[in-house]
């Protein structure tokens, strides 16, 4: 098992070297930083799916929350907003939100004063409606005012690492609410419900221009480590400065990754991990052993989502731009699933291996397809069939096909992944 993993990782290392040889060091170094962030996210999904057997198809939503969080914390302060009536109006909207929430809670507790059955249901629905209207009546003018006068709320000017932590916290909060609603449903329902919720998050982030600047995008988002420009100011040449800056960023991500890996491996090897495996494999028997299945599943759902939030935040920090319209279910949710399935669900190193491998495959299938199409086109042009039109845009679609092909082949021939879960038998 160990030998197999080592061989696979050595192969991966060779693949990275080959890509570095052909595509150049600047390209490869930035892909590596992204691969490290994706490893973190894939580990998050591995916790949820591999350890807990939870079907989370809302990865995109949690990554988006991370991106918004890091933008909000680390982007410089917008004095126009803080000098205007904006904060005051937002405060009123918050109070309206609180009032609406109180109303709904009151309606839900109305059975204490003798309102029952259908009446209680009607009252709750009415409370939701009134609460929604009250909130909308405050937030709509506030949003319009901020967008007209200050553009958007701006950031807080904090350190990006604080933003990453906040991304994790925000994702955890969202995961708690999502988990409360959807856990306990059967797998298919959970998948669809989580996709639905991530689409709601996407619609909100895309359209709440006052908070996230929506499709106008925010850039440049600061780096936690010195930028290439800072090194160049210190007298380095452009190439070395780029490598030094990216190396610094990669090192920081790897430190976070190592800490997460250490903590998860420790937890999984302990009684907590055994309990989680028991719940995953047979939740009825573990419930009869006195384990609180729903609470434990909620716990694991939140833990996994924290890593997704942090990973999403790191990616946004690295590319320095928060563009809500760049988030697609294929590129963010399904890609991560392919990583974990191909790598090996239930094995952290498998998930990491899958993350790096699939990310590289995803990236290089575009130039490879272009090369392939160029050759075919050249050949078909020579024998008189005419050349393939707009190769550039067609080739970039090829990677979606490759992704689909990889997952179907993996399910057919290596359903447990390349580095499968190690089932330890005690006693």
């Amino acid at each position: 098992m160990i030998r197999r993993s080592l061989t696979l990782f050595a192969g991966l290392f060779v693949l990275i070297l080959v890509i570095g040889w052909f595509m150049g060091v600047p390209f490869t170094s930035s892909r590596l930083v992204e691969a490290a962030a994706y490893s973190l996210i894939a580990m998050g999904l591995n916790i949820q799916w591999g350890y807990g057997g939870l079907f989370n198809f809302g990865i995109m939503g949690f990554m988006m929350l991370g991106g918004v969080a890091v933008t909000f914390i680390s982007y410089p302060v917008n004095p126009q907003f803080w000098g205007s009536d904006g904060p005051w109006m937002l405060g009123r909207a918050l109070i309206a939100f609180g009032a609406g929430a109180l109303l709904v809670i009151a309606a839900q507790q109305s059975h204490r004063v003798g309102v029952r059955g259908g009446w209680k249901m009607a009252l709750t629905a009415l409370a939701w409606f009134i609460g929604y209207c009250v909130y909308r009546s405050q937030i709509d003018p506030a949003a319009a005012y901020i967008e007209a006068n200050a553009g958007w709320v701006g950031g807080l000017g904090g350190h990006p690492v604080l933003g990453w932590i906040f991304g994790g916290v925000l994702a955890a909060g969202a995961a708690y609410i999502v988990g409360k609603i959807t856990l306990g449903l059967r797998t298919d329902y959970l998948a669809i419900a989580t996709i639905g919720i991530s689409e709601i998050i996407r619609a909100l982030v895309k359209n709440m221009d006052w908070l996230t600047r929506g499709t106008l995008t925010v850039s440049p988002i600061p780096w936690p480590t010195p930028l290439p420009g800072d090194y160049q100011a210190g007298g380095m040449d452009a190439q070395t400065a780029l490598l030094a800056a990216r190396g610094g960023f990669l090192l920081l991500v790897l430190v976070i990754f190592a800490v997460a890996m250490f903590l998860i491996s420790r937890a999984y090897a302990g009684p907590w991990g055994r309990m989680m495996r028991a719940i995953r494999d047979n939740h009825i028997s573990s419930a009869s052993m006195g384990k609180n299945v729903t609470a434990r599943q909620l716990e694991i759902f939140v833990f996994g989502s924290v890593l997704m939030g942090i990973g999403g935040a790191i990616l946004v920090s690295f590319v320095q731009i928060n563009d809500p319209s760049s988030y697609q279910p294929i590129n963010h949710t399904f890609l991560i699933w392919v990583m974990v399935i191909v790598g090996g669900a239930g094995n952290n190193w498998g998930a990491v291996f899958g993350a790096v491998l699939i990310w590289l495959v995803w990236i290089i299938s575009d130039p490879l397809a272009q090369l392939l199409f160029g050759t075919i086109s050249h050949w078909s042009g020579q024998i008189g069939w005419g050349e393939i039109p707009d190769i550039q845009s067609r080739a970039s679609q090829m990677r979606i096909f490759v992704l689909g092909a990889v997952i179907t082949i993996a399910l057919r021939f290596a359903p447990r992944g390349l580095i499968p879960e190690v089932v330890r038998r005690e006693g």
Partner: protein
Amino acid sequence: MTELIFFINQVVIAGAVLGSIYALGAIGITLIFGILRFAHFAHSELMTGGAFIAFLLATLFAAWGVTAPIPMGFVVLPLAMVLGAVFALGIDKGFYAPLRKRGAKPVTLLIASIGVTLMIQGLIRLFFGSGSYSFFENEPKDVFRVDMSALGSTRPLVITEPQILMIAVTAIAVIALHLFLTRSRLGKAMRAMADNADLAQVSGINTALVVRVTWVIAGALACMAGTMLALDVTLKPDLAFNIILPIFAAAIVGGLGQAYGAIAGGLLIGFAETLAVFNWSMVLKPLNAVLPEWMQLPQTLALVPTEYKLTVAFVILVVTLLVRPTGIFKGASS
């Protein structure tokens, strides 16, 4: 009266069209779930693929000089549905049947269906690019404006020819499906297998045949829904990928495994989406004359801003899952 006609134009017609498309998609999903017990995500690609098949056929027919009084998309629909059914059968044979044979869990089939989605999506984009196509490039899209001044309305009732045909074709398909499920031997076998697969098998029902028939029906209806959607708007590679979630919501709200539930759920979600983004101040404008100064209605009074139209389906879905997870028609829940 003007307000009522406006309401019909904006909500009743649009909701019925959207609802029919959702319903046709949701029937396929719910039947597959009932028989094979997995959520078939690649249904969106059956729809898009079917629409592209219909588009190619329509182009071919037009090139051969075939002319018809109705839009070409509807002329080729029966043929396209046959090809769509074959397409669905082929996908099952190639991707799901080997996994089923191995005894894979429904979750594995679900993930496989996502792989299939990505592959077909990639292939369609590879061949057709990412631009959009229209069925009405060489023929006009007839728009009927029924004059309603006799009823005292200043606005005409507006409906396009594809929309009328679409609602009619959906009604025919639903009635045909109803007759098939209740009258024919095979349809009864299908319902029996959806209720209890093991019991159906020991009663001598040919389950392999039922599975094939399920794919044929699902593929044909998906092709129909995709073509109609492409006729109503435009044909593009992510045509159905964007609406697969409302369709799933429709199937779940109706009760997974229940064909009639899927129809009800589809119409419910379709109307809910159009009603939620409908601008009520246009209808309630006459009230402004009665209401005091401080209660005048604003210019736009929609329940949900238009940008959030797609989220309506998910909110309904989440509420259904919380309040009545089995859906309206008591579908499978565990």
